[in-house]
C-alpha cells in the first residue's frame, strides 16, 4: 500500500495536478503531503517493554539487530528474535497494523545453561562456605569441647584419687561408710562418664579436622563455575530462516562498524 508520488518534470515521472506554471508549487507540496499521508497510513508502531530491561536485544525480520524500545514498521507480519543476557532466545511474530501503535511486553525466561550455572555456583559457594567457615568453626568448637572434656577427665581422676586417699585420713566411721557406699562409686561413675566424653569429643574433633583438611584441599583444586552464554552465541551468530520443508540454519557474521 505504498503510494508513489511523481513530481512533474522528473524522469520517468508523471505529473499530478495542473500543468499551469502558477499552480506547479502547490501541486508539488500537495503531492508531498499525499505521499506523507500515504506513508503514515501504511506503517504502524510497536512499543516494547522488556523484562529484563538490561541488555535486551532483538533481530528484526532475520536481518536487523537492534535494541530500540519503539519501532515504526511497515504494516504486515514481522518476525522478531528477542534475547537478553542469561535468558532464553524467543522467536515471535508481530502483525503491524497501519496507523496503530501496539504496546508489547516481552518477558524472557532464564536459559537452562544459566539455571544450571546458578545451581553449580550455589553448590560451589555452599561447599566453599562449609569448607571455609562452618567446618573450621565446627572444628574449633570440637577442639574446645575436647579440651574441656580432657580437663574434666583429669579433674574426675584427681577427685577419685583424692577420695581414695581420704579413706586413710578419715576417723569417722559414718563418714567412711558414706565414702565407700556413695562417694567413691559416684566418683568412679563420673570418671567413666568423663572418659567416654573425652573419647567422643576427641573423635568428633579428629573427624572434623580431617574433614576440614580434606575439603580445603578439594576446594583448592576446584575453580568456580563459569557461565558460558550459549544463547548469546546462537543469537549473535545464527539466524533462523524457515524453508519449505523444515527450514535451515544459516550462520551469519556481523561486524559492527561505527
Amino acid at each position, binding site marked *: 500500500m505504498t503510494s508513489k508520488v511523481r513530481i512533474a518534470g522528473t524522469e520517468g515521472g508523471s505529473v499530478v495536478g495542473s500543468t499551469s506554471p502558477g499552480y506547479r508549487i502547490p501541486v508539488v507540496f500537495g503531492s508531498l503531503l499525499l505521499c506523507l499521508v500515504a506513508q503514515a497510513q501504511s506503517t504502524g508502531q510497536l512499543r516494547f517493554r522488556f523484562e529484563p530491561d538490561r541488555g535486551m536485544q532483538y533481530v528484526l525480520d532475520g536481518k536487523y539487530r537492534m535494541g530500540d524500545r519503539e519501532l515504526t514498521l511497515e504494516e504486515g507480519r514481522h518476525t522478531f528474535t528477542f534475547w537478553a543476557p542469561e535468558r532464553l532466545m524467543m522467536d515471535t511474530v508481530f502483525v503491524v497494523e497501519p496507523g496503530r501503535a501496539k504496546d508489547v511486553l516481552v518477558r524472557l525466561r532464564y536459559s537452562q545453561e544459566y539455571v544450571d550455572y546458578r545451581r553449580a555456583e550455589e553448590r560451589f559457594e555452599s561447599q566453599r562456605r562449609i569448607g571455609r567457615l562452618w567446618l573450621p568453626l565446627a572444628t574449633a568448637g570440637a577442639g574446645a569441647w575436647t579440651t574441656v572434656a580432657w580437663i574434666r577427665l583429669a579433674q574426675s581422676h584427681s577427685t577419685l584419687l583424692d577420695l581414695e586417699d581420704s579413706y586413710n585420713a578419715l*576417723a569417722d566411721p559414718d563418714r567412711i561408710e558414706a565414702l565407700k557406699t556413695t562417694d567413691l562409686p559416684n*566418683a568412679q561413675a563420673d570418671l567413666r562418664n568423663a572418659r567416654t566424653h573425652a573419647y567422643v569429643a576427641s573423635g568428633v574433633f579428629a573427624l572434623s579436622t580431617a574433614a576440614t583438611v580434606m575439603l580445603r584441599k578439594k576446594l583448592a583444586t576446584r575453580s568456580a563455575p563459569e557461565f558460558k552464554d550459549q544463547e548469546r552465541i546462537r543469537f549473535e551468530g545464527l539466524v533462523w530462516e524457515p524453508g519449505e520443508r523444515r527450514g535451515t540454519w544459516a550462520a551469519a557474521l556481523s561486524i559492527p562498524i561505527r
Partner: protein
Amino acid sequence: MKRFLILLPFLVLLSSCFKDTVDTASLTNNPFDRDFNGEQVFVFEETFLETVNIGGGTNVLYQVIVFRVREELFLSPTDYGIRLDDLQNGQDAQPVTPVSAGSSRYRYRREPLPGTSICLRLRLTNSQSAARAETICATL
C-alpha cells in the same frame, strides 16, 4: 592442628592408664571402718582390785580392767573416743578414763567379781558413730 591429631592417640593411651576403678571392698585397713579386718585394736592388759575412799572413812572396792588401744594401727594420727559395753552386767556406754594424760592405755572400773570372766565390748568412736566392735575378757 595436625600435630594435635597425632597427639590424640597418645592422649587416648594416656587416659587408659588412668585408674578408674577403686575396689571399695578392698578398703578394710582403717580401724575406724566398720569393715576393718585387721588385728585387734583393743588389747587387754591387766585387771586388779582398787580401794577407793569415798569419804566419811568409807572405802569401796572396785575391779579395774586396763586395756590398751593400738594406735599404731591407725592410718593417720587422730583423736578418738571409746564406747564400752559391759557384757557381764549389761550396762552399755560405760565411762573409761586414760591411765595418764595422752596415754593409749585406759581403765574401766566396776564392782569386783573374783573368778568371773568379765567381757567388755569395745568400739572406737568419733562424731557419735562407732567403729567395729571388739571383745576383751578379764578374770580377777
